[in-house]
């Protein structure tokens, strides 16, 4: 598959692994698999139905990457290129699964407010558009609550429940910590589009966390 033309700013974080990989270094390959396998699995699952199929797609993407490595010119980072190979294959596979409604097209509603309208004062309120009641500071919650595995599982569940596009963006930006440029590059999004998707995703995850943390 062709490389994206938009070069992200900054050097490739995997430049050294890439050199070693080209030299046939197995340890370098395994390092990449451990580093990016989990993220690829998450992204693949936004296109296909089951974790088993997602795993096959991920595997297929690694093989595809190896076969195309000769043609990789480094105009993007190795990982954004890898992600493009993966999305491509996952998309094809998802289409083959012939679902009537693909996951990724479900309720990707750009007009959805970040916080429910009822949380703000109406036009007749003292401060229209101001909070009806202030959000709670989570700093006051017991620290073990915030560090609990259960809280992380809640975040994980919320992310996995997001529409495909939002999920891909939040996984790459927040879970994996990639830059906005790289995410635009990997998913072929405009900066504006990327930001809208990320914002929707974060807002939904925050709301779900709020619901969980503040339930008695």
């Amino acid at each position, binding site marked *: 598959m062709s490389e994206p033309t938009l070069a992200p700013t900054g050097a490739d974080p995997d430049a050294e692994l890439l050199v070693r990989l080209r030299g*046939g270094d*197995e340890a370098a*390959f*395994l390092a990449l*698999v*451990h580093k990016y*396998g*989990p993220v690829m*699995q998450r992204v693949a699952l936004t296109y296909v139905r089951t974790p088993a199929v997602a*795993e096959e797609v*991920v*595997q297929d993407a*690694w*093989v595809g990457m*190896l*076969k195309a*490595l*000769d043609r990789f010119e480094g105009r993007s980072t190795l990982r954004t290129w890898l992600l493009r190979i993966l999305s491509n294959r996952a998309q094809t596979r998802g289409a083959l699964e012939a679902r009537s409604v693909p996951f990724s097209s479900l309720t990707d509603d750009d007009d959805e*407010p*970040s*916080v429910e*309208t009822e949380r*703000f004062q109406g036009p007749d309120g003292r*401060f*229209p*558009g*101001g*909070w009806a009641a*202030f*959000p*709670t*500071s*989570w*700093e006051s919650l017991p620290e073990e609550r*915030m560090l609990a*595995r259960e*809280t*992380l*599982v809640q*975040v*994980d569940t919320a*992310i996995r429940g997001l529409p495909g596009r939002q999920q891909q963006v*939040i996984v790459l930006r*927040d*879970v*994996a*910590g990639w830059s*906005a440029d790289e995410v635009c590059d990997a998913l072929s999004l405009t*900066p504006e589009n990327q*930001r809208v998707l*990320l*914002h929707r995703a*974060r*807002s939904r*995850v*925050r709301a779900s*966390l*709020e619901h969980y943390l503040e339930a008695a």
Partner: protein
Amino acid sequence: MTCQQLVELVTAYFDDALDQAAREDFDRHVALCPGCLAYLEQMRTTIRLSHDLDTLERQPDVTALLSEFRDWQRTSSG
């Protein structure tokens, strides 16, 4: 800027994508509004927790991949 408008701009704020006037407006609002300050903190916590998810990740099984890699090695060096 109202609280309701502010919550729509948080990601643009974090990514430094607001123009200077909007950014100043945003900062002024948060400095005076405990509700939006708490909201901003909640968004920061959400991002941090998302990043912590890697502690839950299961490492992939590499057996099949390794044999693919060795095949590739053979053909590319041969």
